[in-house]
């Protein structure tokens, strides 16, 4: 209502100096709004939307990109063992890493929340450091910690007569290592989100629960988790997308090895599409990240719409 009133009064003011129709057009709310968003629209249309659609087209071409071959790239992928290995590894990697990150983030957020306010800032600052260092650079440190002959972890393990552990040499250990590094990098993000969520839970709820004699687990189950549900859901979805599409850590730590056993979609698509020069096949591989994106998008959109209704 008030907006209409404003527009009317603005129009009256504009009327007075008798502006030209062209100038008036450029002062209208919708025109200005459109001009303000135009760069954003162009950017998204040209550099996000178009390439996304273009990759679907690319996926239907042959290697030299001279001929339309329909779905042959996909049927070819389905016959390859490596492809199914990548599917499996991507899912194992993303799901286990996200669960571990969420769990550790949740625990650490609670621990930090226990602390008195003055100390909290300092701890929060230290715990978030892994998230701040560019992952490509911190993974180099992990690579060196995992070095086959000079591993500092193996040196420590040797003291208690364990090892040497082939951190990146053996398939199982290499899978474990990429997950470990991803958890190290991503858990602080969960911690910071959950800590923010914990602070927004009204303290009165806990006071009432304490008066009623609720145990720690009851408070966790009936107050903390329901109050944090939205944040937990959205953070997990975010992280699932980012982890599923992870490139830096796997690329630097194992480069997909040993014998392609730790490849995820992104690193394999890079190997085939950019290094191998088979752009259509690489595009087909990366297209397999679409389904999880769509599922996440639907969930998040539903959430946004629900909030819209509440307001």
């Amino acid at each position, binding site marked *: 209502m008030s907006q209409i009133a404003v527009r009317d009064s603005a129009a009256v003011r504009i009327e007075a100096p008798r502006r030209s129709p062209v100038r008036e057009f450029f002062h209208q709310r919708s025109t200005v*709004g459109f001009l303000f968003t135009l760069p954003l629209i162009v950017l998204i249309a040209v550099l996000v939307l178009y390439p996304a659609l273009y990759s679907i087209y690319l996926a239907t071409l042959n290697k030299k990109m001279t001929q339309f071959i329909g779905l042959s790239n996909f049927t070819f992928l389905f016959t390859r063992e490596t492809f199914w290995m990548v599917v499996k590894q991507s899912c194992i990697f993303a799901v286990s890493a996200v669960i571990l990150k969420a769990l550790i983030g949740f625990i650490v957020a609670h621990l930090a929340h226990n602390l008195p306010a003055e100390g909290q800032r300092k701890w929060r600052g230290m715990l978030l450091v892994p998230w701040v260092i560019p992952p490509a650079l911190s993974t*180099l440190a992990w690579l060196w910690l995992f070095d086959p002959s000079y591993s*500092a972890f193996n040196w420590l393990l040797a003291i208690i007569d364990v090892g040497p552990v082939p951190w990146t040499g053996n398939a199982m250990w290499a899978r474990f290592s990429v997950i470990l590094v991803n958890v190290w990098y991503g858990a602080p993000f969960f911690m910071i989100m959950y800590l923010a969520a914990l602070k927004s839970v009204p303290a009165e709820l806990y006071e009432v629960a304490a008066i009623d004699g609720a145990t720690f687990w009851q408070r966790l189950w009936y107050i903390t988790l329901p109050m944090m549900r939205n944040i937990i859901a959205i953070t997990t979805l975010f992280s699932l997308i980012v982890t599923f*599409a992870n490139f830096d850590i796997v690329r630097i730590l194992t480069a997909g090895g040993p014998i392609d056993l730790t490849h995820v979609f992104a690193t394999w698509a*890079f190997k085939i599409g950019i290094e191998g020069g088979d752009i259509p096949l690489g595009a087909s591989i990366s297209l397999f*990240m679409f389904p999880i994106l769509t599922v996440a998008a639907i969930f998040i959109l539903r959430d946004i719409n629900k909030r819209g209704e509440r307001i």
Partner: protein
Amino acid sequence: MTASSIASAPSAAASLDADTGGVGGDRRWALFWSYFFLCIFAGFALMPPLYMLITGLKTSNEVSAATNPWWVYHPTLSNFTELLTSPLFLTFFKNSAIVAVLVVIITMLISVPAAFALSRMKFWGSGVLATGVFLTYLVPETLLFIPLFKMFATFRDWTGIELINRWYVLLLLYPTLTVPFCTWIMIGYFGSIPKELDEAALMDGATWTQTLTRIFIPVALPGIIAATIFAFTVAWAQFLYPLAFTTSQDQLVLSVGIATTLIKADVFNWGQIMAGALLGAAPPLVIYAFLMDYYIAGLTAGATKG
């Protein structure tokens, strides 16, 4: 949300928390175990950067010696001074700095007006566009790099303008990562500004542009700082795009330069690689150390404002 309100929030929460603790002894034990486990987690979090520093201070002889890897017996700064005087490393650093600064400027020029329009000027399709911006943020770069690579190759064939293997191609690529998120959090910040403020300005005859530059930008400054920090860290840390799009040594940025050329150049000169990684991680770490509250506000705004 202003910086001061961020800072004051924890103290308020904690003072309430202290009251709910119940028996004093219980509370002290809980605190003890909290500190105990937090120490373990903090040790885990800080170990790799610490190990970077330890290795960076060693000579190659000491790196390959069979001594305790967690201790430096003969600390030296030679790795750092060598890197800081090496033209190659300085080129990486310069490229990274130029790209990051320009990306921040481009991002802000695009996302601030767009966020203003989307949060204040309802026009046809603005609601859909706001949701679309958020969804774009979810599209990972690993999905787009192959079609973009092909697009730029085709673009060269058509116009003769070479983009691949030029550092400035990153100026086109990085905004696809930074703009959607920055627009999204700026919509949130602008949305929290009372409507009376811009209504009053418009009533007084201010144009939309004046309302944005004179009122919204100053009032939402904390949000703009948070968005700037986000754009800078993303631009500084990005690895896939420069790895795929740039190959010549003089066009590389730090993240790729350290990971590819330093490893290839020497027979795994780990002291220097770790020193380089630490120097490369320094700018985001310094920004984080000084502007932690803004950094965290930007991080949490994305989900909580949604």
